[in-house]
């Protein structure tokens, strides 16, 4: 119940295309869903996050879509650029229960071809 399942494991997109990464969870107590971006040799960095009271959140080229009934959320990267090539992790936590520890998905290695 604590798992967050992420797909695909790897993704190759042409420059200017849309990158889409999907995640699913089981525990309905999760109430905070962030996406992290990690470059080689670096720690993960928060990209964008959403709470379950909204269905979509957009920040620049990055959009989270959230489907509470399906217990799924996804990251869309519009106009993908070579600099977006990195590993992306979805995560979930239970903020309202005071548990800020994150459960991470398996990660998606994104490659943007120029």
């Amino acid at each position: 119940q604590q798992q967050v399942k992420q797909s695909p494991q790897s993704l190759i997109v042409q420059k200017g295309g849309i990158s889409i990464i999907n995640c699913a969870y089981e525990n309905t107590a999760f109430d905070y869903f962030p996406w992290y971006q990690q470059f080689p040799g670096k720690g993960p960095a928060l990209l964008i996050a959403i709470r379950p009271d909204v269905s979509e959140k957009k920040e620049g080229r990055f959009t989270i879509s959230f489907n509470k009934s399906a217990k799924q959320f996804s990251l869309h990267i519009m106009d993908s650029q070579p600099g977006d090539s990195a590993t992306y992790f979805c995560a979930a936590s239970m903020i309202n229960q005071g548990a800020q520890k994150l459960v991470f998905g398996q990660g998606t290695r994104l490659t943007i071809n120029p």
Partner: protein
Amino acid sequence: SAVISQKPSRDICQRGTSLTIQCQVDSQVTMMFWYRQQPGQSLTLIATANQGSEATYESGFVIDKFPISRPNLTFSTLTVSNMSPEDSSIYLCSGTVLTEAFFGQGTRLTVV
């Protein structure tokens, strides 16, 4: 926001020895955590570092193997004890400010 500094950034250690990893945050954070990440893999939570008290460990991780200290709000250490090659991994410190978690750059540990 918070900037998290970890040291060492990498180390190669002999099996049977111990390594202590330090984590310093530039501002007060609500909570601090330690994660382990195998290269190319996801992050697995080891424990929550509690200020002034014993850490809270996740299933599969024990205090004797991974003793953790957090003497104040901005500093924590993780010790990997009696190391074996299976402990070779990246260890990451994290601190939260409100809902946002910040990560150090990680410590890449190789046990030979």
